[in-house]
């Protein structure tokens, strides 16, 4: 098992290295000179050259790449071309906000989807299972921002139970933090949960048809016990795959919901940076997102190996 995990880890590191080159190359190939953008169209060539020198853009590409990688590895991500502020601390702040939101929404999704999906699978022949299945299908079709607006309308505007938007760091005011987190986490989580429910349902349905579940019943386990002890771990493998994909897409896709709820997350940082042609910020944010997605994939791969002994190569 350790060998398999190490192999996956090596793949992760290699992918990360390749992706830095790709991200860097993309930014170089994009048309538009950050110095020209910063100074405006009226600036003299001399002034632009001067700024290019300050940004370090007149150095050969390999040197630029090396200095960027060096900065990534030591945590110095450089300064914004536009605001001149340090990118590192700002990015860390935004990442933290996005991670909290995304993880909270994934918790909502799992808490909704796993019991509901299992129940729907067990009852798939009965009317209630069919009705729930149809409702989940409807949930899949609702975009998260619409769910967000609906939630704001009901719980913030009509009922006034929760704030409509905003973000307070947990260290500043834990109660306000939770109150403001509830609606965006629900908006993202319920929609993700609807998708996940369908995967949980089909994974459990597959497992229910397995011979080993019949063996478990033949041993004397009641249906629910057999499913709990022998089914869920097997059903978890496909569900973990989907969960990993959802986590990765939500990390990027949370941006719309961040806008709706006025949350200063990574997505809004990226959108602002793109709008301002703040290329180094774009480059850093994209790199962080790529690293996060790769990390999620690594975790999913490791989880597979933990869940399913058949995937543990080389230790038979």
């Amino acid at each position, binding site marked *: 098992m350790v060998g398999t995990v190490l192999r996956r880890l090596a793949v992760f590191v290699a992918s990360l290295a390749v992706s830095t080159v790709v991200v860097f190359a993309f930014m170089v190939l994009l048309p538009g000179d950050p110095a020209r953008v910063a100074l405006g169209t009226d600036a003299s060539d001399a002034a632009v050259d001067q700024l290019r020198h300050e940004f370090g853009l007149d150095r050969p590409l390999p040197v630029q790449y090396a200095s960027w990688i060096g900065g990534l590895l030591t945590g110095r991500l450089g300064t914004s071309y536009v605001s001149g502020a340090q990118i590192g601390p700002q990015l860390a702040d935004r990442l933290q906000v996005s991670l909290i939101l995304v993880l909270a929404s994934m918790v909502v999704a799992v808490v909704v989807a796993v019991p509901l999906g299992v129940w729907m699978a067990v009852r798939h*022949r009965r009317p209630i299972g069919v009705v729930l299945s149809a409702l989940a299908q409807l949930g899949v079709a609702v975009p998260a921002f619409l769910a967000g607006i609906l939630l704001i309308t009901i719980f913030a505007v009509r009922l006034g139970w929760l704030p409509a938007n905003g973000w307070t760091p947990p260290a500043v005011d834990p109660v306000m933090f939770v109150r403001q987190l509830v609606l965006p986490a629900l908006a993202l989580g319920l929609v993700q949960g609807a998708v996940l429910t369908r995967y949980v349902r089909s994974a459990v349905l597959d497992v229910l048809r*397995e*011979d*080993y579940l*019949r*063996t*478990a*019943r*033949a*041993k*004397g*386990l*009641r*249906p629910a016990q057999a499913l709990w*002890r*022998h089914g869920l*771990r*097997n059903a978890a493998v496909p569900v973990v795959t989907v969960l990993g994909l959802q986590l990765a897409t939500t990390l990027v896709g949370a941006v719309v919901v961040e806008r709706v709820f006025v949350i200063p997350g990574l997505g809004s940082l990226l959108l602002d940076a793109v709008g301002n042609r703040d290329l180094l910020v774009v480059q850093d944010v994209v790199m962080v997102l790529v690293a996060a997605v790769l990390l999620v994939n690594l975790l999913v791969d490791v989880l597979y190996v933990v*869940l*399913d*002994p*058949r995937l543990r190569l080389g230790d*038979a």
Partner: protein
Amino acid sequence: MSTVVDPVLRVRDLTIRTRSVELLRGVDLTIGRGERVGLIGESGSGKSITSLAIMGLLPDNVQATGSVRLGERELLGTPERELARVRGRDVAMVFQEPMTALNPTMRIGDQVAEAMLIHHTQPSRAAAADRAIELLEAVRLPDPKALVRAYPHQLSGGQRQRVVLAIALANDPALLICDEPTTALDVTVQQLVLDLLVRGVEERDAAMLFITHDLAVVANVCEQVAVMYGGRIVEAGPVNEVFRRPRHRYTQGLLAASDLAVDPHSGQLRAIAGSVPAAGRFPEGCVFRSRCWKATDQCRAEPPWTGAPHGPGYACWHPAQSEVIT
């Protein structure tokens, strides 16, 4: 099948139907302590559904009527909670497909020990784990101490079937049901598994219901045999009797088809004409008449059971004379 005084299993008039289709009609089976009964027939004849009915594992979209008694206990209509206590303790089952019968994510030892822990037939986890090693040793698996930590995918099909057998025998059941236990195995390991099955039930003086379409295996393993077609038992009796002097035309056809000698007239292997109809498509009256070479108008009526009630006999209007087939 013989008139057993105190049977382990006593099935009477077992009829199973879905909302639209009758799967089983009027099945009688009696198995005494230490007795081994074969249940034979082509695919689709109702063998497996019979075994599931005895295990209480019928899918919830079928209805069963009649009686299935295990010892003194009536199983039909018993609530699931009580059935679960019987299952795996008093009646156990070995399935056809060893490759998928074990949980791929659970260690072999835990899967064997679980059978005992569910029914509290061992006082502790440690005792159950020790007993699991003994059981694996009894089915002649190599290095059982290391094997308990292995996962099913690390074992061959024959080894997995022996694990399934160890699980089935763990609580010394009074009745062991085997549903085609060697069909999916290599010929080379079939005999080993059969020997282990027979030894396992003999050591426990358990009754055995052996489901197969392989007549040679039945002749090898069982003393009594019941022949099934179209959801009914069409002939039953001692293996010697039935295989040497089949009375029902279906039994006769099965025996002829299992004979690998080439037909001198056609130059081909013998087979029963036609194929088994889908469930619910069997003819009225004698279920076999659509494929029977002796069928007459009389066969439109259901043939009565000729012989001992619930015992040896057959249900055929035109039985083969009791000439010895060589």
